[in-house]
């Protein structure tokens, strides 16, 4: 690794109305290194990145690239300085093709005037092929899965041949296989002397890929460590400012009452002969590669998607769940995987978002019980430790992880009997993860049945009573807690996969 300092961000400060997002943060990145940025939800990581990427401008501080101070006022400026960013939120245009999205804002021209679609598609195809991705350049973004969209974002960012590449939680919706693929490419870029800033809440990833780790907390610089010279405990203490003792909280009971049973569910090409059952007071893990059909099963149960044949029984009785509202009345709650697309009202307040499913608790006829509304909000904001300046803050302005907590809080507010969590800890920091685990534990202790879809195997293994593994729309295994290993799960998860 060379010692050349590629990028310095010195004493950056940024204030939003009512929120001091960055007090004083500095960061130094060398050419050819992967520099991880670590911090709790709302610590200011994305804000720092957006300043570097020309989305926000800083209130104070300087940015130095290759030894000279630069001003970055727009995305174009950032691109000019060789900075390319994969943002935390997916930013693709749904109704445009993969190729159009990759070259958005820098479309190749012919005759200096017209977009050269042929070249654009050919180039995109070339790119996708070189990364061995099975995505066609003329496919519409809206037809891709979230994981595929994430891959398109990554490829788009790589295609800039940037000097400085920033990745804000690039792996949050990727499966292990895609993560490996991404890491391979990161290593290639390192060899090419690209400086990489990498943000992730998965500590195991940082160990694998990062050379250095800088920790920020509440908008302040805490310290920088060499990865090989630090420990998880030290990093966590730096992050949360105290020691975290229990990570996975789980008291296992002996659940025997079936609350949900699914029999021979078939839905087109997506799901084939899905059968499983769920006891009250247990956590049933759902593992599998992204696209295995796990979310699809849950959407069928929750009445969002239709299925062709099969039966769903709740408390032993066959039911037809007509729509999500009907599902809620039967005590089912589903926390979807894509918070932006499927869950949040970005322009509305924290209160609005949390209470939207529990309006019955404080609106009676035309009377709105404001005190009760605030009480409910407070209960779940406190329980989920949501970091927000006021309850009135619009959710779009919260950090990514805190948005996730709002979604979970909303569904807890409906007091469900069967709680389906689709990637509940995606993009959530370690402290909050521990918090979510302990909440899940509390819920099952009180008899709630939880289905947890997760691509994070350690969490599946440590939290679940039993684990259902899916692959290519089929259930390939139902494993009990004893003797559960990552290898075992992966073995089942890769059956029927033809790649």
């Amino acid at each position: 690794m060379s010692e050349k300092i590629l990028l310095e961000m010195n004493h950056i400060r940024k204030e939003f109305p009512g929120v001091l997002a960055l007090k004083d943060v500095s960061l130094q990145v060398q050419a050819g290194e992967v520099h991880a940025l670590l911090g709790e939800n709302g610590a200011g990581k994305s804000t720092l990145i957006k300043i570097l990427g020309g989305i926000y401008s800083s209130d104070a501080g300087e940015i130095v690239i290759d030894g000279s101070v630069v001003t970055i006022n727009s995305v174009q400026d950032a691109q000019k300085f060789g900075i390319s960013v994969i943002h935390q939120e997916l930013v693709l245009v749904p109704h445009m093709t993969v190729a159009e999205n990759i070259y958005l804002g820098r479309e190749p021209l012919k005759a200096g005037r017209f977009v050269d679609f042929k070249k654009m598609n050919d180039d995109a195809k070339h790119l996708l092929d070189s990364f061995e991705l099975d995505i066609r350049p003329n496919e519409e973004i809206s037809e891709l899965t979230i994981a595929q969209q994430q891959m398109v974002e990554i490829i788009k960012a790589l295609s800039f041949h940037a000097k400085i590449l920033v990745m804000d939680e690039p792996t949050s919706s990727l499966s292990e296989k895609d993560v490996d693929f991404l890491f391979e490419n990161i290593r290639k870029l390192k060899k090419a002397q690209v400086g990489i800033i990498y943000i992730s809440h998965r500590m195991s990833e940082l160990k694998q890929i990062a050379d250095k780790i800088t920790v920020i907390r509440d908008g302040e610089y805490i310290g920088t460590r060499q990865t090989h010279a630090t420990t998880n405990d030290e990093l966590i203490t730096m992050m949360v400012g105290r020691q975290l003792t229990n990570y996975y909280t789980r008291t296992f009971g002996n659940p025997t009452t079936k609350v949900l049973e699914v029999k021979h569910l078939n839905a087109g090409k997506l799901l084939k002969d899905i059968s499983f059952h769920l006891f009250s007071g247990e956590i049933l893990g759902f593992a599998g590669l992204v696209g295995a059909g796990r979310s699809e099963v849950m959407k069928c149960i929750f009445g969002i998607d239709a299925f062709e044949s099969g039966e769903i029984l709740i408390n032993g009785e066959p039911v037809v769940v007509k729509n999500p509202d009907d599902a809620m009345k039967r005590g089912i709650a589903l926390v979807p995987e894509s918070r932006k697309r499927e869950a949040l009202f970005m322009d509305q307040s924290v209160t609005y978002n949390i209470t939207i499913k529990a309006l019955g608790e404080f609106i009676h006829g035309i009377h709105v019980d404001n005190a009760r509304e605030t009480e409910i909000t407070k209960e779940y904001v406190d329980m989920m430790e949501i970091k927000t300046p006021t309850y009135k803050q619009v959710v779009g302005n919260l950090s990514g992880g805190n948005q996730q907590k709002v979604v979970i809080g909303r569904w807890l507010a409906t007091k469900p009997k069967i709680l389906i969590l689709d990637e509940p800890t995606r993009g959530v920091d370690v402290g909050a993860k521990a918090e979510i685990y302990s909440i899940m534990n509390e819920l099952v202790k009180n008899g709630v049945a939880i289905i947890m879809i997760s691509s994070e195997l350690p969490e599946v293994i440590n939290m679940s009573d039993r684990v259902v593994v899916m692959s290519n729309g089929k259930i390939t295994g139902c494993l009990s807690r004893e003797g559960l290993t990552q290898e075992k799960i992966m073995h089942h998860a890769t059956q029927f996969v033809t790649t």
Partner: protein
Amino acid sequence: MKKLQAKNNPLYNFGRENFGILIGLLLLCVILTIFSPVFLSKNNILNVLRQVATNLYIACAMTMVIILGGIDLSVGSTIALSGVVTGGMIAFDGHSLVVAVIAGLLVGVAVGAFNGFLISKTTIPPFIVTLSTMNIARGASYVYTGGQPIRVMSDSFNFIGSGYVGEIPMPIIYLVIIVIISVLIMSKSRLGRHIYAVGGNPTAARFSGINNSRVLFFAYLFSGLMAAIAGVVLASRMFSGQPTAGQGAEMDAIAAVVLGGTSMSGGVGKIGGTVIGALIIGVLSNGLNLLGINSFWQYIVKGVVILIAVYVDFLKKGKKSN
């Protein structure tokens, strides 16, 4: 591979994307040919096209505006304002025709620029901005004319809207040019890509280094200019600038755009669809006239047809997404 080729054939694409409304248009024509001997005559067809023309100038721009997730309600009033200014420049001030027409067009550009400026630089919704300019421009037309039409009895002025080149009426020539330019912008140019991007996901557009404001500004400017062209053409055809001209024109344009399959929520749509949409509206009113159905009923028929067309489109799209 075969699929790729098909995708690259614009005519095939045009047919496939607009299959439903093309059939509708065809059906309409067949029915009218059966019931009215005049319908298929050359004169009548040119007549329909001439009527469709002014709506389509505006509708082309409106397509861009709606793809951007916006709306331009001010076009009808702009038709009046640019018409009366052109007329007034000749009749009141004795300016030459060229100067008057340029002034008329500039009025439209000014209204468009004003809309574009407010919409791209503030967060006031396009509906509100253009609702205001709609009233302002209409009011200005009345004030400027004192409520009376401004008569311009000049053959050269009248040629703009009523003249012919060979057998082709002038408005149709403008129409062809405008449609070609619009199609080129939307399907071939970078600007077109950016219009779809800003309409489909403004954040993504901004994060990709697109200047959203500039794209928005352009669309409303273009809309103003198109309305002005329509205004001058209409004034010329009527030998006068009339402050009441273009009333409801914005709604006809929006109807054409929507019939053509453009989504009111932005991000999706094509000029080609809008052209067919406008033709349907044009042929329909022409047909109803030929059949002697009174104009009160025509409104009802028009409304019903729009609903049916959009509903069919909805059914089609619903199937696709499953």
